[in-house]
């Protein structure tokens, strides 16, 4: 899958018929996405024009291919898609033509030729309970990751599985799934979390790595440009939250009227992502607009986070057995304390007799 077109990104885009106007538009969009000043757009263009097309290796581990589906289906006809072609995506099992030994040979060749310079994209978590749970060409995921990561310039974790362990890590985590950052400690790691992540975030991050290197990250290693605000911050249903108008069920009048989904379990207030800004499918819609609350898929351990449909203001309070036991123990303690106190009291009339004597 190594591209036959060498040279810079600018050369490649011109060869593909992308106009200067279209290219500048993309650069302006990218600068805007990454929260740069508008004056940075020409610099993005200049950097992209000169950027050598870096080799990108995409390793899929314990994953559902949803991240790849999201990226390819939603954006392949756009200029972002072309840019994605413009990087030399040398190894991606799902979309590469080669298979079997040929594919593995490509991986070996690409890593050897670009040692120390390629960008490694990973989707899927890595099982550690048993190396045999997930293998590619007979090589376990963890061994392949360690081997390929050694020569990588940077690692981009695509999706919550590679970023945080994701669904495979959900309790009871039968495969012992872990995130890339649990294994690789000596390389820059960018987590583009989400289940799946927004396509524009993937291309935006790759553009940033191409032009200006590693973007500013939050404490979970996510680019602040895309994960700097919560879903709730930018949600179009926010005014209903402010007015106290909530859907109580998915089929009630509130839901039909498009009111806030907080009470049916929306995790928007604690989920850092930009779905409410960029939406999906070219900005057509996104889960909350479709009538379902945010499930917090870009946050660590979201599957185990106390239920997708439990409102945020509820707690894990235990059960009535525990509360009943506490009440029972309290009643016994109270009765004992009261009886002990009564025993200390002198019988009626004793104080009078004492006074008379």
């Amino acid at each position, binding site marked *: 899958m190594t591209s036959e077109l060498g040279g810079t990104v600018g050369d490649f885009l011109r060869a593909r018929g992308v106009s200067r106007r279209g290219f500048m538009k993309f650069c302006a969009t990218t600068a805007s996405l990454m929260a740069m000043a508008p004056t940075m757009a020409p610099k993005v263009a200049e950097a992209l024009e000169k950027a050598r097309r870096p080799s990108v290796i995409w390793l899929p581990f314990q994953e559902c291919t949803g991240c790849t589906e999201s990226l390819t289906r939603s954006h392949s006809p756009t200029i972002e898609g072309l840019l994605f072609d413009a990087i030399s995506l040398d190894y991606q099992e799902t979309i590469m033509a080669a298979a079997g030994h040929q594919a593995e040979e490509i991986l070996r060749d690409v890593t050897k030729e670009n040692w120390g310079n390629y960008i490694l994209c990973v989707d899927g978590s890595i099982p550690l309970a048993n190396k045999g749970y997930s293998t590619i060409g007979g090589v376990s995921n963890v061994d392949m990751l360690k081997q390929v990561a050694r020569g990588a310039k940077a690692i981009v974790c695509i999706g919550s599985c590679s970023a945080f362990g994701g669904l495979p890590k959900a309790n009871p985590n039968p495969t012992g799934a872990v995130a890339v950052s649990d294994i690789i400690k000596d390389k820059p790691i960018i987590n583009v979390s989400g289940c799946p992540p927004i396509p524009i975030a993937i291309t935006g991050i790759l553009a940033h790595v191409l032009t200006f290197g590693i973007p500013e990250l939050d404490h979970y290693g996510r680019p602040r440009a895309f994960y700097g605000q*919560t879903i709730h911050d930018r949600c179009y249903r926010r005014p209903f939250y402010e007015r*106290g108008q909530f859907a109580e069920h998915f089929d009630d009048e509130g839901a039909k009227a498009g009111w806030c989904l*907080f009470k049916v379990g929306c995790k928007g207030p604690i989920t850092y992502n930009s779905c409410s800004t960029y939406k999906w499918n070219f900005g057509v819609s996104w889960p909350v607009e479709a009538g379902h609350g945010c499930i917090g898929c870009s946050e660590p351990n979201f599957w185990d986070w106390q239920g997708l449909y439990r409102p945020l*203001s*509820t707690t894990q309070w235990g059960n009535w057995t525990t509360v009943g036991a*506490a009440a029972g123990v309290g009643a016994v303690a109270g*009765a004992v304390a*009261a009886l002990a106190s009564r025993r200390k009291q002198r019988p*009626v009339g004793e104080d009078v007799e004492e006074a008379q004597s």
Partner: protein
Amino acid sequence: MTILEFARGPAFQFALTLFVFGVVWRLVGTFLMMRRHDFSKPRKHSLVAGGVRSIAMRSLPPHELEKKIVFQHVSGYAWHLTFFASLLLFAPHIPFFKQFLGFGWPTLPNGLALACGAVALGILLALLWRRATRPVLRHISTIDDYISVILTILPLLTGFFAYYRFGIQFIRYETLLGLHILSVCALMVWFPFGKLMHLFLAFPARFQAGALLRRKGVEA
């Protein structure tokens, strides 16, 4: 485990268990420790009416002190009303109660509920300042008073921080929310062991006093 996960999980479970234990312990202990049997002949009957009357009368300021305690009286009523409005009629709080009760109820617009919370917070801060600066009040105050007031202030304060996301540049929203829940946990833990227990004991105490006085022939 994040602060929010800790607050919603183990911390709240611990606080709820201790709260239930403490409240039942205090109530059972108090009611079983009632006065000794009185062998004297009652001067008046209808003790229940006496108790109810006492509850009503002691909810109003004593006539002789009416002008002197107008601030405490008005601020006391205003505080309780606004505090319970912000607690029970603020929409995001309803799922919290619904998980125990199985049902919810209509709420105020968030802006109105928050205004109630702001009034409650302001009154509480004013009363704390008054208690700390007036010599007589300071003299009769105990550590219980200060702890009870401060632990009641904290959920209101952290609630505003969480809702308005004050300091979001320095601290994440889920941490603010976690601190809000932790402050509620602290309040629940302290509740049965301090003066906040008056929530459950104020009316029974007034009733009992009224009934006993009625028996002795006193109209109180």
